[in-house]
């Protein structure tokens, strides 16, 4: 563990910020360019994870364990979100025989 701690000494907080924003932006691009609903949900998971990592980095930076407790709550929320979302996807697939997001345009103006 001491070896890992020494490994951590040299990383500025800015690099964590940049890395997590890159992962978040990849998630946003995934939502924008894919049409499969399941892959859109996976991109949302990617965004949630980048925010989790940033919270953990700030928690280690400030020496405050509250950030890691927040990450724990976000993980519980993500599990609930995935369960409900996949149930909705299964129901949509049963009705339209497709997971294409373009088949869900009944509510569009």
């Amino acid at each position: 563990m001491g070896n890992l701690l020494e490994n951590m000494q040299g990383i500025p907080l800015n690099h964590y910020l940049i890395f997590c924003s890159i992962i978040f932006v990849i998630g946003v691009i995934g939502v924008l360019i894919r049409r499969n609903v399941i892959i859109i949900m996976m991109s949302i998971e990617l965004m949630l994870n980048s925010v989790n990592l940033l919270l953990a980095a700030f928690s280690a930076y400030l020496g405050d364990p509250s950030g890691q407790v927040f990450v724990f709550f976000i993980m519980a929320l993500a599990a609930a979100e995935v369960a409900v979302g996949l149930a909705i996807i299964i129901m949509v697939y049963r009705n339209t025989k497709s997971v294409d997001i373009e088949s869900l345009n009944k509510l569009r103006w």
Partner: protein
Amino acid sequence: MTIFYFVAFLSIFFALMTIFTKNPVHSVLYLVITFFTFTVHYILLNAQFLAVVNFIVYMGAIMVLFLFVLMLLNLNKDTEPMKSHLVKFMGVIAGMCLLVTFLGAFRVLETNNEFVQGHADIGLVKNLGKVLFKDFLLPFELSSILLLTAMVGAVLLAKKETRTNQNG
């Protein structure tokens, strides 16, 4: 120190592979690798409890759920609906604009060259449990209600409706 940059590069690479692969099953597998690199990040940050939870919940439960739904709906083929190249190009441009906005906002921050120092004992189950059950007791109980509601909702949504069959 160099471990972080190597793992960060792996994370970005596999995240890109996740959203650009055509086959949905390969996409899920790349996402599993991405989450594994996130677990390595948590270990590097001395957040051992989060590393274990991330490993079990994300790589175990959530990814199995995704893979199960993909296999159940029989989507493991390459004939996946793709958007046109113009929409893809515009999506990438919009994402890059968002990234530039983020980076421009971070330049104003005062945290320029301060180092992240992982405290050795902050991420252990003992300390996190004390904080969780002392300061965050009410949100903890509320999250249990949230999980119960989500479970009931998922079962209700995914259940086959027999009432419409009787009427029609």
